[in-house]
């Protein structure tokens, strides 16, 4: 499940065509449920939103994204 900030919802819905909106918050953000078949590609997709998106679950994907970011050279 991927949380998208309100400012990036149109972009997200344009990029992701097989997701299901499982929650819409009052602030305009949405939670998208997606089936991930390629972890690297999914992390690349999530990072195109920079800090305007967050993987809520599963924890393994959160951890994988965090590990990826920690490898960005300082």
């Amino acid at each position, binding site marked *: 499940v991927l949380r998208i900030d309100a*400012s*990036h919802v*149109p*972009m997200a*819905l*344009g990029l992701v*065509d097989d997701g299901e909106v499982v929650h819409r918050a009052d602030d305009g953000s949405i939670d998208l449920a997606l089936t991930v078949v390629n972890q690297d590609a999914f992390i*690349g997709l999530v*990072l*195109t939103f*920079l*800090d*305007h998106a*967050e993987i809520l679950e599963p924890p393994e994907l*959160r951890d994988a*994204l*965090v590990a*990826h*970011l*920690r*490898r*960005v*050279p*300082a």
Partner: protein
Amino acid sequence: MSRVPAGARVARLLAMIPWMTEHSPIHVDEVCRRFGITRKDLLAELEVLPFVGVPPYTPDTMISVDIDDDMVSVFLAEPFDRPLRLTPSQALALVAAGASIRAIPGADPGDALQRGLAKVAAALRVDPERVTVELGDVEQATLDALVDAARTHRQVEIGYYTYGRDEHSVRVVDPHRVYADRGSWYLLGWCHRSEDTRVFRIDRIDSCRVLDASFEPQDPTSEIAVFHPSSDDPVVTLSLAPEAGWVVEQYPTESVVLDGDRTIVQLRVAARPWLERLLVRLGSAAVVVDADAELADAGPAAARRILERYGAA
């Protein structure tokens, strides 16, 4: 030679070659009249033709041009006379390309191209009407409004998300052309906010209002609808690991140098968020070798912001 976009120039050449071949020898002035170009431009095009051919590009596989006393003769090499043989996948790609053109508003379904492609489809035993080409997830009402505004030369006000700068804005645009490319719809037009020609992805337009104000129509061949970095944009130098080689293929580069198994590439950066996205996606596969001070920390700063969101900074 007058400045003609490369695409328009190739299209013109593709029309000129068979006609000149069929009518050789033909007077230079007659070719100029038929194709509406100057003598100087025609002679420049004719200088290019001897470099056109097919592999292995030996003299017998190249187009030859002879100009004698203002009479032009164009001769196609023997390989051009062979019947075109397509693999099934190449033929299907042609049918699909034709279907995408048919999807463009205003396209004539009965034109020569569509009739020709129908024959290819028949040989493949596929129904071209059942070949569906999806050109991005855009609102049909937005697409129709933009096409109509471009046709009637009316300005539009659009709400637009700029991916590179990560910002939303409202702009007034003179819509010059709506077109599809590589699976997405685009609007090419004069942006009054930027005071420059801009290309907009239509799936990033979240509102569109046709205004009463009109604009002077533009020559459709006078603009090139591709991104060109400005020479004022700062340059960043990256050292890329082999798995990041796609960067060189995907983005305009200033220079590319191989250094062992790594690639040293220079890119112009139009906006910091674009570089941030690139660097966080590349992770450990890219190292910034050189950059202006304001861009030097783009990767780690963006990574830090995202990690903060995950409570992991």
